[in-house]
């Protein structure tokens, strides 16, 4: 086996040092009654050549959205990633290293985490950020748990325009805590109504959760949501599933958000069939000690040289065990590094321009589909970033099937999550969308049955 260096001669030398007769004897304390004597269903070992052929065949059984005209978003977006990003995360000192618990030989990872935390704070205009969570959905669940800890209350008001899978993840995390989740019914109007939030909040409410752009792509009114939260004295949790929007829209931190979480997938990570993605998590300094996850800080060494360490670890499971702020240990460090590299390459101008280009493409898509003249149009007259809900003359399923025949990936059928929303489709565009792709959509939409 190419991954095991020991030779028969080595084994002999080692057994003699141990004083054991055989390797088998080292397993003698596993009683016979539980020894495995069967055969695994796993295939026989393959050479690298065979592995590559087999895996390439499997990959060929997929028709990746990124290689097709793609209008699908709904929490995962097809953006361009500069070549330098992957080249750099392929540096084995990054990807084959462990969590930087030995700071003297982990300054590269630690400085990168510090830079990542700085970027996340800037993205959201918040004061502190952690070193990452698994993804946006689980980061939101942790935000809700944190809000309940801070306030000592066990209820949360959440807009039903927050991503359905994120809401499901929150519900799963709080399943056994009996947390009361109040979902507003905002989806018919496409935007969260501050008045409705106001009415939904009770004296037991810990926090309000709103996503912008929301699941239908529309931009929420952070200012109004912030005012409601302050008026009622509840925490303001803001989230975003499309981090690219932060290159165009003002962040929730500008409007008094207490905790902000986001999905970082759009910032250099690719689609990867849903993961690994990146849970970005930021909050206010006053809530630092209730924050989940690892945090990196700057300090000095014995010679007074500036350097970095993982810090505030008395919040974490390896110190605090059952009293920890979260059970998280492994996070998404390499994804956080990826995003740090991506944002560095894009820079101020590139980030903002790419976000604008996404918006231009989506505006063109919106305008073109309504020009078909068969009732297709955007469902709400609301500002959006790069995704919007559209009314269709047919079902989303029907349109998607027609598009699939032409090798294109259609939009998201929201009736899966909002059963009354029939003949509607969620369409996304990015900087990679081309005029020809939009023409294909227009042509397909125009085809009668």
């Amino acid at each position, binding site marked *: 086996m190419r991954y095991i260096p020991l030779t028969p001669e080595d084994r002999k030398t080692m057994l003699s040092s141990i004083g054991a007769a055989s*390797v088998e004897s*080292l397993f003698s304390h596993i009683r016979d009654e539980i020894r495995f004597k069967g055969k695994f269903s796993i295939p026989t070992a393959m050479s690298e050549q065979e592995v590559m052929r087999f*895996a390439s065949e499997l990959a060929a059984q997929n028709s990746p959205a990124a290689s097709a005209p793609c209008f699908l978003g709904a929490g*995962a977006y097809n953006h361009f990633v500069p070549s330098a990003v992957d080249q750099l995360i392929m540096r084995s000192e990054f990807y084959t290293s462990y969590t930087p618990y*030995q700071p003297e030989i982990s300054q590269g990872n630690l*400085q990168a985490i510090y830079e990542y935390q700085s970027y996340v704070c800037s993205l959201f205009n918040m004061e502190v950020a952690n070193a990452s969570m698994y993804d946006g959905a689980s980061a939101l669940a942790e935000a809700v748990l944190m809000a309940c800890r801070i306030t000592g209350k066990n209820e949360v008001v959440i807009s039903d325009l927050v991503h359905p899978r994120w809401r499901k993840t929150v519900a799963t995390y709080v399943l056994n805590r009996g947390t009361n989740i109040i979902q507003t019914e905002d989806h018919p109007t496409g935007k969260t109504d501050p008045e409705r939030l106001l009415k939904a909040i009770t004296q037991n409410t810990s926090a309000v959760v709103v996503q912008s752009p929301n699941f239908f792509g529309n931009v929420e009114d952070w200012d109004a949501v912030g005012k409601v939260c302050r008026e009622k004295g509840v925490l303001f949790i803001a989230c975003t599933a499309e981090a690219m929007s932060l290159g165009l829209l003002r962040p929730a931190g500008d409007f008094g958000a207490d905790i902000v979480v986001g999905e970082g997938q759009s910032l250099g990570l690719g*689609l990867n069939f849903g993961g690994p993605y990146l849970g970005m998590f930021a909050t206010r300094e006053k809530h630092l000690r209730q924050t989940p996850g690892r945090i990196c800080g700057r300090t000095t060494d014995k010679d007074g040289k500036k350097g970095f360490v993982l810090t505030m670890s008395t919040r974490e499971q390896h110190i605090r065990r059952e009293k920890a702020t979260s059970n998280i240990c492994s996070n998404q460090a390499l994804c956080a590094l990826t995003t740090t590299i991506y944002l560095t390459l894009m820079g101020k101008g590139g980030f903002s321009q790419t976000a604008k280009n996404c918006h231009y493409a989506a505006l063109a898509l919106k305008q073109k589909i309504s020009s078909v003249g068969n009732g297709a149009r955007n469902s709400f007259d609301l500002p959006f970033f790069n995704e919007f809900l559209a009314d269709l003359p047919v079902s989303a399923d029907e349109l998607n099937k027609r598009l699939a025949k032409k090798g294109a990936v259609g939009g998201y059928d929201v009736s899966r999550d909002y059963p009354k929303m029939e003949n509607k489709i969620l369409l996304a565009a990015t900087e990679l969308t081309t005029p020809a792709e939009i023409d294909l959509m227009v042509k397909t939409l125009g085809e009668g049955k």
Partner: protein
Amino acid sequence: MGGAQSRNILGKPYARGIVFNEPLIFERSRAGRNGCDVAKSPFEQKEISAGFAKGTLREDFTGFVEVSEPSAVRHFTRLSQWNYGVDSNFYPLGSCTMKYNPKVNEAVARLAGFTGLHPLQDEATAQGALRVIYELEKYLCDIVGMHSASLQPAAGAQGELTGLMLIHAYLKDKGNARKKVILPDSSHGTNPASAALCEYSTVPLASGTDGLIDCSALEKLMDEETAALMVTNPNTLGMFEKNIKRVCEIVHAKGGLVYADGANLNAILGKTRFGDMGVDVCHMNLHKTFSTPHGGGGPGSGPVLAKDFLAPYMPAPRVVLADGRYKLEHNPPKSVGALNAFYGNFGVYLRAYVYLLSVGGEGLGDISDAAVLNANYILSRLKGHYHVPYDGPCMHECVLSDKFQKDAHVSTLDIAKSLIDRGFHPPTIYFPLIVKGAMMIEPTESESLETMDTFVDAMVDIAEVAKTHPLSLAEAPVLAKMRRLDETQAVRNPDLRHKP
């Protein structure tokens, strides 16, 4: 360094040798540079502000940088050079299984047929990926003797949480979800933290004098309000819980379930299976046992695996095979729900799938053979130089302590930092908590005899220096990029971000 030339260099911003200095990326920023020439949009570029209410659009980009592509590449390349990876040298971190990360895994994970897949695209267009999920679940079940698996948990801790949720849901269906979870005092910190997240109170179980679970102590603790025992086998002392079958019987007799933490699975591949021991549910760490890279702290993958009676509670969606096609089942009625937005860290468990193809079913036992042989070899060579708190053959890792060095005021921390000066990453230290000054060494199957001998020589050298020049070890490391860092200062004056 000595002489006039070195005096000229010291204190200047030059590199020392080839260890480069590199400031924060924010300090590299200069107005007018850029690292990406963004493609021009082919669409009409209207005045954007017209479509938005006043105050909606971002104008402030403080905190973002302007650097060229070469500067950015050099910045991160230099940072990488300050790290230590498995590809650099031996990484003997106990309970972390820092084995070699095969390069073919990386190549497969980068095939466009996988990287470009949208999680919500039509199942018919993602058959290859769904097959990976379906088959990997099957293979992993086989390895630990379980019935069903979910690859959704993104890391070991999320796997633990999911496993406990399955237990909670099952017991609740039976009428009483119960209140407590029993944990051996040698358990990983994530175990009690996951139990707490699942609203279980934790009851510690003291290890016996032999370092193993004390069955009579367990019998006394186990009652009908206890939902589960969480056990790590081999345990964190690197010892196999030889009474595991009896342990499971004791828990089952009171209607509780047994959870196995798979952190140490690398010791028993092809040798024994959790399911056959009597365990009801477990998780694995694919980033440990199945060779996916640790990535400087993540992403990992922590599949949960369980017996048939827990299968209905698994997270959704589930991949099912019907009429030769793979499909997603989104709403199984008894499912505990969702742990993240899609199907977990696909790109990570894809690598583990490739690893299994490379190793093959019959090769799994060889991995544990080599891992256990290596650990016992290191133990045999270091015995006598370092105190061995629990004697007896070890499995894939051995635990030592600083007891022999303590009188000379040399601590485990000093030994760890002295290893850095000798070119090695330190072992896991001060864990498990039940051993004072613990050093937990796990060589994995990836190491050659020569590498282990060099490591042993370094450890023996440190033990010798501890006798002759003990104070010098308190200064270590002196040859690394940094000396010891002031962690107290980091907590007292939190500096957690660059402030533009």
